[in-house]
């Protein structure tokens, strides 16, 4: 009996201990889940050298360039900057959102220029760096890149239409991030060896859209499916942003191009001239590689890189991916989407738009060092290290320094022009309803894919888009 009593006692004690442990584990779990509080950011918080900083990016191809710049900066300052990449873009945005809520942000946060950086700033993720990003620093960069990242009063007002993306807490004329990658969409890549096999001249790129179509028809006829053109139409905006917008800008001219998207369009989507742009785009329909509507952006580039496609639509940023995939640089011909004959412009000019910017996280304890690195990244030395490492175009105007870079990159540099009436900034959606690239823009891209799928005629697409834009403007009232 005594033994049993003791046994029960021990059992009860064990049960209590287990219950305590169970509750303790819960508390520990809660503590682990809790905010890291003041631990946000990295480093000790004192100014000077010997700091450990972290930077986040969403572009894998930018990592070698950023690491090269970080290493050079670290050597001169005694600090260390670790580059961390999270892909794809959607996962990165979610990662930043989660880190912002738990105050686990890095010191430096990358963001899509002239859109996402402001959303991050409005949410308190990024600090206002207008005080440090002074005139001397701005002068290092392409003027168009600086202009595009300066927040305007109009942009703030327009953003108010959508409360979930409102920028009303931000100051006009202020800066919240510094662009470090620039460039433009609207480039076509071609595989020279395949062109030669199909008997297409590789000494110079097609001068007009019609010439390009004729060349693709030739490669398609001679090489079969692998002679077609690819792009990631599974993500519909690629066809619209990267190809159709430059094409229709060249054909319609700036005024009509903007007017078509506007509130009271005299050149509506179903006007004769707009229908002609859709017919031009529709000429590509039989020339895409099979299954193009099921190809993601990377998959389309991979098809081009492995020889399953002779042509590929992308942007300045596509080149680095192609080289990563093992493409021979000498086998690549690159040129901007050529202007159609009979259009408003006879040469395609693209503005070097800022593509990726970096800002200082509001939780960073190493603000001074983070700013110092961003300043270094904008310098000629930092930008050169970044550009060469990433095989991409930095936001800093490097002038003649690019002459020694790879020829394809040089070709793309040559196609970029300072702002002007006949120059398209591919990221400028200010004429659209919904304040920039709002819900109408991806909807337009989806509708354009009906042409590729053979589910609608240019006239039907034009009519549908006219109705969509009219309704979108009416809803804005």
């Amino acid at each position, binding site marked *: 009996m005594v033994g049993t009593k003791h046994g029960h006692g021990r059992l*009860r004690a064990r*049960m*209590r201990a*287990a*219950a*305590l442990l*169970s*509750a303790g*584990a*819960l508390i520990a*779990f*809660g503590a682990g889940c809790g905010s890291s509080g003041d631990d946000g950011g990295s480093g000790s918080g004192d100014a000077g050298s010997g700091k450990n900083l972290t930077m986040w990016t969403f572009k894998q191809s930018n990592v070698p360039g950023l690491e090269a710049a970080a290493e050079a900066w670290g050597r001169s300052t005694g600090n260390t900057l670790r580059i961390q990449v999270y892909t794809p*873009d*959607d996962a990165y*945005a*979610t990662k*930043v*959102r989660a880190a912002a809520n738990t105050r686990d942000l890095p010191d430096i946060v990358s963001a*899509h220029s002239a*859109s*996402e950086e402001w*959303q*991050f700033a*409005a*949410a308190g*993720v990024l600090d206002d760096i207008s005080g440090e990003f002074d005139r001397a620093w701005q002068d290092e960069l392409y003027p168009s890149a600086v202009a595009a990242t300066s927040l305007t009063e109009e942009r703030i007002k327009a953003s108010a239409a*959508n*409360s*979930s*993306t*409102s920028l009303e807490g931000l100051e006009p004329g202020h800066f919240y991030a510094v662009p470090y990658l620039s460039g433009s969409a609207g480039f076509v890549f071609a595989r020279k060896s395949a062109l030669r096999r199909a008997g297409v001249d590789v000494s110079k790129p097609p001068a007009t859209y019609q010439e390009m179509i004729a060349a693709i028809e030739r490669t398609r006829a001679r090489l079969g*499916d692998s002679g077609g053109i690819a792009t990631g*139409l*599974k*993500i*519909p905006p690629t066809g619209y942003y990267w190809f159709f917008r430059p094409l229709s800008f060249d054909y319609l001219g700036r005024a009509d191009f903007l007017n078509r998207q506007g509130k009271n369009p005299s050149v509506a989507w179903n006007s004769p001239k707009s229908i002609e742009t859709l017919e031009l785009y529709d000429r590509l329909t039989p020339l895409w590689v*099979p*299954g*193009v*509507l*099921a*190809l*993601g952006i990377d998959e389309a580039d991979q098809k081009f890189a492995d020889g399953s496609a002779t042509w590929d639509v992308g942007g300045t940023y596509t080149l680095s991916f192609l080289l990563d995939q093992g493409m021979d640089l000498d086998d690549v011909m690159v040129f901007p989407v050529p202007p159609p004959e009979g259009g408003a412009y006879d040469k395609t000019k693209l503005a070097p738009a800022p593509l990726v910017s970096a800002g200082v996280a509001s939780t960073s304890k190493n603000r001074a060092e983070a700013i110092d690195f961003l300043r270094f990244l904008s310098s000629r030395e930092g930008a050169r290290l970044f550009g060469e490492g990433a095989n991409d175009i930095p936001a800093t105007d490097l002038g003649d320094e690019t002459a020694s870079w790879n020829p394809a990159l040089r070709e793309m540099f040559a196609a970029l022009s300072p702002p002007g009436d006949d120059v398209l900034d591919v990221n400028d959606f200010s004429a659209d309803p919904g304040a920039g*690239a*709002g*819900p*109408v823009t*991806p*909807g337009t891209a*989806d509708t354009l*894919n*009906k042409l*590729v*799928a053979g*589910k609608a005629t240019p006239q039907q697409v034009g009519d549908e888009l006219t109705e*969509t834009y009219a*309704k*979108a403007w*009416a*809803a804005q009232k």
Partner: protein
Amino acid sequence: MGSAEVDASAEAGARRPQGRRALARPRRRRAARRYGLKQSLTAYGFLAPAVVLFAIFGVYTVAYGFMLSFNRWNGLSPEWTWVGLQNFKDLFSADPVLAPRVRGAVGKTAIVMVALPVLVVGISLPIAVMLNSIARLRATLRTLYFLPYVTAGVGVYYAWRFMYEPAGAVNSLLRSVGLDSLAQADGFLGSTSTALPATIAVLVWMTVPLGILLFLTGLQTIDESLFEAARVEGASQWTIVRRVVWPLLAPITALLIVICLREALQNFQLFLLMTNGGPVDSTNVLGLQVYRLAFDRGNNNLGLASALGWTLFALALALSLLNLRIMRDRTRS
């Protein structure tokens, strides 16, 4: 000792134990209370993790999502914007871009909701009956049939995507057996007419094993004498399945249909990874639309996503109740 003294001492003696008992009672009660308290604390200690975790990940998130459906929020900004029922209006009529898309997604989801249960029940029941009627290799075949269900989803989606490509295994197979006319030049995911059936086929392929397992479990609970009696009466195998097996498996069929409906309404990952809703929104189902509203870069609105999510929940609940009611009535009759 006089008699009076004896009486008094006897009375005192008799009273003494009563007094001790009276004194001991509150002590025992206190001890019992202490014991009960300790027992309760122990029980609460064990229960606490489950209760708190459920409160955080269950009640809190459900309430949070419900509140969010009446607000606008991009997941970043510190504050929500109250919009009342506007999210629901935008989803179904007010937003000129979003509403047609959501209506299109409703149509695609309805197709999946009809096709998935019909095909899963139609395929898994005969397989289960056949598996139940064989003695040899039953365990091996059961394991084999169950493999698709336990294979990691993402890997399966990518494997099917490669098989559906223009130069993929499905087209090659069709061409090798002379069915060139069925082969798809753009692959099965690159054409608006085949993308949805192709994705439904993958869903069916992944859900049939569960159906087989459930039906097999049900079949093994049916008394063998029922089959023998039916055979004695001269019933064919088909009649036995139709008249004996099928009615007795009605509760399991109801459960399987509910699982299929849930899958049709909530699965977005298959559509996201295989087609991203395309081509031309031909596979844009409601589950994927919720995901897009929540996470599409630059346009994300978790309020709209929550509103659509709650609409889906209400729809799923109503359909499940309706299905269970119908199946219960049929079983009774």
